[in-house]
């Protein structure tokens, strides 16, 4: 597509990068077809091509973001389904990331929204603060029905209370910075992203990961000073906070590489994996040592199912006679293009694996999306659960805590893929399957 940037504008590395993507786009419109919001709302402005056009206009004119542009960019789930569809190879993720940071810098949101976004950006990435906030939400849960009105603020408060779990598991000691030695001869050494929200909501996922990996002969390091990957802030356009969190991880893992070497950095929350694999791009304008460290981290990052596929996985229990509907998290299938590995592993573990119709369409979780855009998120969840139920499964497996929370609470148990793989290789039966 034609663009209209001045030479002066193109000196900004972010504009230069976005210009490259805009020039790659040929405006063919294929992306509209697989965009969840275009499907629901039927408006070009709520499609990738429409958003690209809005972003292009905003960046070209250099004017502050307007409420109209913000509304349509905010409605983007960042599911990246459009990137799987795009024949031209436009990196929409980098474009929309740039737009979000630009919006944050140039647009003043109404105060309730500023408060909510600031609170989410500060609380969720910090496990102890998030735990306290959830305890508060649990107390307030019965009051959800009393919040009046259909305004965005009321909808968002109700969504937050609804999504807060009825009880929070106790913190797991296994997630403290430590080295978990391999059982038997050590065949590999990896770092595990302990994460933020996931360890509060479902510590069993990290427990299963560490159990399974160490049993296979992998030494697992939870690095000191590593924490939230930065995605939450990144997706809300909170650029500095995102970079600070990413930088902490980059330094922590590089320190670990210096101490004992790392064969991989394992991620078991695919939303985080997409961002960590992009650290190299995020730090592209930094000076050499940091830039190279970021690139090293991105090149070592693997989803846990990618690692297991390469490393080898064999079950030790007999096949469990269960049908698993595999829910492909968008960050895994579109963000990281990991599609076959989880299903192949689940089949190898002895499960019957079925896939829902519209597997490429997002469940509506999308990080904080289900808190910030509850109406669209709820429609997508119902659509997804309908398609999953139609496959008549015994349970649902997914590789991302966001999807697990979004799809949970229904009659079907939702379990992380790694918990099922651990169970079949000698670990305990996952909690949701114990009745």
């Amino acid at each position, binding site marked *: *597509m*034609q*663009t209209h940037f001045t030479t002066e504008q193109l000196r900004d590395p972010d504009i230069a990068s976005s210009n490259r993507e805009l*020039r*790659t*786009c*040929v*405006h*063919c*419109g*294929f*992306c*509209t*077809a*697989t965009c969840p919001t*275009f499907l629901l709302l*039927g*408006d*070009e*402005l709520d499609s990738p*091509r*429409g958003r690209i*056009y*809005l972003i292009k*206009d905003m960046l070209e004119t250099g004017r502050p973001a*307007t409420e*109209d*542009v913000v509304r*349509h960019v905010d409605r983007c789930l960042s599911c990246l389904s459009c990137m799987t*569809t*795009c*024949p*031209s*190879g*436009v990196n929409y993720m980098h474009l929309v990331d740039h737009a979000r940071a630009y919006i944050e810098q140039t647009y003043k949101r109404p105060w309730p929204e500023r408060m909510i976004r600031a609170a989410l950006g500060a609380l969720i990435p910090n496990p102890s603060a998030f735990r306290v906030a959830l305890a508060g939400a649990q107390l307030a849960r019965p009051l959800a029905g009393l919040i009046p009105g259909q305004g965005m603020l009321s909808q968002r408060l109700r969504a937050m209370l609804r999504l807060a779990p009825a009880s929070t598991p106790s913190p797991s000691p296994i997630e403290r910075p430590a080295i978990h030695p391999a059982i038997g001869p050590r065949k590999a050494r990896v770092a595990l992203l302990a994460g933020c929200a996931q360890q509060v909501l479902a510590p069993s996922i990290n427990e299963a990961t560490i159990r399974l990996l160490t049993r296979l002969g992998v030494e697992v390091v939870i690095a000191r000073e590593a924490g939230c990957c930065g995605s939450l802030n990144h997706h809300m356009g909170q650029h500095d906070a995102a970079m600070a969190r990413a930088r902490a991880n980059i330094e922590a893992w590089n320190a670990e590489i210096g101490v004992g070497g790392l064969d991989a950095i394992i991620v078991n929350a695919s939303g985080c994996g997409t961002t960590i694999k992009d650290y190299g791009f995020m730090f592209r304008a930094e000076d050499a040592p940091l830039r190279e460290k970021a690139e090293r981290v991105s090149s070592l990052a693997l989803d846990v199912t990618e690692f297991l596929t390469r490393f080898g996985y064999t079950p030790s229990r007999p096949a469990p006679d269960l049908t698993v509907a595999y829910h492909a998290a968008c960050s895994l299938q579109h963000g990281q293009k990991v599609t076959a590995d989880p299903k192949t592993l689940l089949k190898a573990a002895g499960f019957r694996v079925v896939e829902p119709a519209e597997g490429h369409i997002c469940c509506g979780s999308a990080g904080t999306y289900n808190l910030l855009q509850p109406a669209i998120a709820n429609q997508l969840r119902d659509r997804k659960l309908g398609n999953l139920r139609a496959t008549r499964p015994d349970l649902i497996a997914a590789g991302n805590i966001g999807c697990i929370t979004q799809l949970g609470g229904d009659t079907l148990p939702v379990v992380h893929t790694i918990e099922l793989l651990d169970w079949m290789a000698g670990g305990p039966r996952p909690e949701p399957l114990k009745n």
Partner: protein
Amino acid sequence: MIPLPAPKQDVLQRRAAIVAGLRDLLPESGLISEPNRLKPYETDGLSAYRMPPMAVALPETTEQVAAVLRFCSRNGVRVVPRGAGTSLSGGALPMEDSVVVGLMRMNRILDIDYADRCATVQAGVTNIGVTNAVSANGFFYAPDPSSQLACMIGGNVNMNSGGAHCLKYGVTANNLLGLKIVTIDGDILDIGGHHLDAAGYDWLGLLTGSEGMLAVVTEVTVRILRAPEGARAMLAAFASNEVAGACVDSIISSGIIPVALEFMDRPAIHACEAFAHAGYPLDAEAMLIIEVEGSTAEQDDLLGRLSAICNRHDPISLKVSQSAEESLAIWKGRKGAFGAIGRISPDYLCMDGTIPTSQLPLVLRRIGEMSAGYGLGVANIFHAGDGNLHPLIMFDANDPASFHKAETFGADILRLCVEVGGCLTGEHGVGVEKRDLMPVQFAPHELAQQRRIKSAFDPDWLLNPSKVFPLVGPAAGPVLSMAAE
């Protein structure tokens, strides 16, 4: 640049009242009128032409479409119908004084009749959406434009879209049984039904391919067909475009009708392979995708005969797809071909001429010569079996001289198509892109007769202005202006 008619000043002056009037006819969020929200609607798949409309209406029912058209007709407002906005000929290009009627919200499957083998869907259902709705029962909808993932059935009717598999099954016109249309006066008409051959004049034939200039299509009844028992694709690689072209001619003249017979040249093969990883022959100058279908015995017999024909043209390689995944990747590459050119060139013009297949070797050679003459790259991707060419002319839209050259080059190709006994458009429609070449194809009295048909449906020429007919007579505005810089 192709000139566009000047806007009607009186309409622009009444803008606020027109927007308010339209707003009353549509559901909440059904009307867009803010300038920065109109911008993404200023163009379609031919993004070199751009013009933001006065407003965009997003109706949800046929009745709302009728109300909007009645209102526009009474107020002398031009109307541009739009589906998914994937037109490569600028078929959905708005005018400054026009209202875009977007049918994307009308995306429901209304009825599937397996006994009579047809389906009725709203105009905003995607082409693939029709097949998806019936595939679990072993049926499919045959016409398959490359943009079938995104393009909508209403647009397919208006452009009489084809596709790779039309060699065997025919184009949209051959797969259509009924339409619900809204005239510019707001009257709702039902045409055809669940049976072949509609009553009275051949309205379906007239409206199919009418490019949104006669009426707005809101519902479509299409034929659905039993899916074949199986299908297999073969890749045949050749050392030159002309040899591949000669091979196409041999296949067609042998009497075999493969279900698809597609041509890609070297630049196209490389761009598409990078996208689809289909195992295309990267050492070839040209490649044919030949697909056959039916029982395994039928496929084997046809592939054997086709291989023998290919072998007479000294192929570099012949490869038969060994699995469903491989076939899927082969088609993914072909269907994503236009967009994949975005990997090797920032912009392209996609031509769409049709020629007798016996002329393929000559026309391909001449296109190659023109490419060298203009100094612009060309990727050739097309439905070879139908003789429907899609040369993609690569240019840089940030360089106006390059765009001008590309347009002139494109016009030369289309003139060549007419010269060898073919026509200006196979399936993309005339739109704004080929409008001024219509006199190359038609004599003045032939164009005049077509204009009379347009006037019979739309006396004030309000529907899809500035498309198809050169800007003389009723198609012309008071002054000519340029669409874009």
